[in-house]
């Protein structure tokens, strides 16, 4: 009896689904292809559109691009958010099917799926941020994070009174290694004997872990922490602000990442954000969108952004903490990096080589 009821229900569900899908696909074939205006969209990784970092920055770039070109949100530019890794392919295909001209995948986690979908839809243009996908219809946007991190290291070493600084990474990967190596190299360039405590939280979305790691670091005498850990970094900020709140005279500095995280560091009249390593995902996204609109889509190419073209920079928002001394030193090293007198290391091996040369 019970069995039969389930069977009937299941049958009904299937029928409803099939019938409605038949209606649905009939409808959708009529739309699309009617307009010849430019449409672009992005798929976030699991960080979400309001991660105060990477995805948000990309969206700001796209919004900027839309504003500059008189496009409307949801008509000319839009985004789809991914809640899990299973969502990437679904979201990418959704955009392909709604005739989007250029689709951005934000973050290296989308690289493989972009590759697959790009193979299936050769007429659509794709762009991947922070990774390289070698396909004719995919533009790969990468940044020279090691350069900005190098400068963050210089600033940290200049600011540190204890001679101990910290680095909190998200997930250990080639990408985050660039941040770590550059940072350590920059710090050692200023003060050869500085101690750098490097720790990985194993996640980009675990502020609790970030807070714990930061707490241990500050306890052990570290006074500047550079985080490259997305949402996990919010925990680093939270810990620094707690400590600063209890002891306004203490040295608890955080160096932000990707965006200017000055606002994240505000606590009462104090601000714990020393500076931020700016990665202009917004500039890059707007740039590639513009090229694509103008018919100069850099398909199959690797588009690299660094200090030279302001794709990477260092924030100077916190005037009280980021003193003239620090500014001068950072600018000096920046010049060296831009001129090519110094090359910031981006892997462990390069870092070792760099340290030996000091």
């Amino acid at each position, binding site marked *: 009896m*019970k069995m039969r009821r389930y069977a009937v229900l*299941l049958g009904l569900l299937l029928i409803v689904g099939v019938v*409605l899908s038949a209606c649905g696909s009939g409808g*959708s074939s009529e739309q699309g292809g009617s307009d010849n205006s430019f449409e672009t969209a992005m798929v976030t990784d699991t960080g979400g559109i309001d991660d105060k970092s990477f995805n948000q920055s990309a969206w700001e770039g796209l919004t900027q691009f839309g504003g500059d070109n008189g496009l409307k949100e949801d008509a000319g530019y839009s985004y789809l*958010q991914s809640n899990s890794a*299973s*969502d990437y392919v679904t*979201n990418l295909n*959704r955009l392909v099917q709604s005739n989007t001209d250029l689709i951005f995948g934000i973050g290296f986690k989308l690289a493989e799926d972009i590759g697959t979908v790009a193979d299936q839809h050769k007429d659509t243009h794709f762009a991947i941020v922070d990774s390289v996908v070698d396909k004719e219809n995919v533009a790969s946007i990468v940044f020279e994070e090691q350069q900005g991190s190098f400068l963050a290291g210089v600033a940290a070493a200049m600011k540190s009174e204890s001679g101990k600084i910290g680095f909190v990474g998200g997930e250990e990967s080639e990408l985050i290694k660039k941040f770590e190596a550059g940072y350590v190299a920059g710090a050692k360039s200023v003060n050869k004997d500085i101690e750098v405590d490097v720790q990985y939280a*194993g996640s980009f979305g675990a502020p609790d872990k970030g807070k714990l790691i930061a707490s241990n670091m500050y306890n052990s005498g570290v006074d500047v922490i550079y985080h490259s850990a997305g949402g996990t970094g919010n925990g680093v900020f939270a810990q620094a602000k707690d400590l600063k709140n209890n002891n306004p005279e203490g040295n608890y500095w955080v160096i932000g990442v990707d965006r200017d995280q000055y606002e994240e560091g505000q606590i009462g009249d104090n601000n714990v954000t020393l500076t931020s390593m700016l990665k202009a995902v917004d500039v890059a996204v707007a740039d590639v969108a513009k090229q694509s609109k103008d018919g100069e889509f850099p398909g199959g190419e690797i588009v690299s952004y660094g200090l030279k073209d302001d794709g990477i920079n260092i924030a100077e928002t916190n005037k009280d903490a980021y003193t003239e001394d620090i500014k001068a030193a950072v600018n000096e090293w920046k010049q060296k990096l831009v001129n090519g007198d110094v090359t910031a290391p981006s892997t462990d091996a390069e870092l070792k080589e760099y340290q030996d040369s000091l």
Partner: protein
Amino acid sequence: MFSSTKFNFIIPIISVVLGLVAGAIIMLIFGYNPILGYQALWNGVFDSGFFMSETVNRITPYILTGLAIAFAFRTGLFNIGAEGQVLVGWIASVWVGTAIDAPTILHLPLALLAAGAAGAFWAFIPGILKAKLGVHEVIVSIMMNYVALHLTNYLIRDVMTDNSESTEQVKQTASLTNDFLIGLTGSRLHLGFIVALFMVIVMWVILERTKLGYELKAVGYNQHASNYAGMKVGRNIVISMVISGLFAGLAGAMQGLGSFGTAFTNTAFSNLGFDGIAVALLGGNNPFGVILSASLFGFLKVGALNMSTAGVPNEIIEIVIALIILFVASGFIIRWALLQLKKGERK
């Protein structure tokens, strides 16, 4: 009067309706149009064959994790470790899928078997600890989840690849994907749903048609009575965890051999195992009920991705799901309300 089985069926349905209504009210409060929102949700799945197939792909592992949790529940255990069992099953299937050369007829079953065995082993540990030492399975299996997460990340990064975030694709002979199905919709639709449906029947047969199932359920109802009746309580606890883990491990294989064809490092849990708890609860711990509730979950998760086209944030669906679970969990209130209604009619 309502019979108890009727309640088992009515309460989930009322809960789903209430959840959707509450979701609509929340959308209204925040100034979104619920009709457009739900329309986008519906279209997100039924717009084209592609998205319907993606939904099936999403449903498949939910059925298996739902079965895993439901099976344990039916035998008096709470296997919250399904999440970890999914992860080890996932990586085991990919390992066999990439490392071995064999014809499909051997390779695919072997990869599936490896996934099931890995999940079963992962569940065996909390099972044996409970049976021998009386350690609560919830505590151990939660910890096993973290061990699984970090162990699989390590294996992918340092053993299976050279510091890369994802393994290579499994060989075609071990893949669940099927050219005919891909050609049909252009999606990643794979044959995993057959495995999942088969396992539904397996669970039903074990529980309802075998002596073993009878014993497992008896131990779940009352350990002491079962012991008194001459059943080996400890052995049954272990068996039941192992079967539960096997289902969860297979859910991992659905991802590893089907949807993704690869294993990648995770910064956080996949949530398949945790969502399985909700699927089992909503499905009334009945294998066929699990199919329905897993379908609902898959539908909501895939449809939600389309809701931003109606300007509604897709997180709203997470709220709806949470509310549905809340209503199911507080089913006694619905039962009481229904009975009051009945009484009122009689007067």
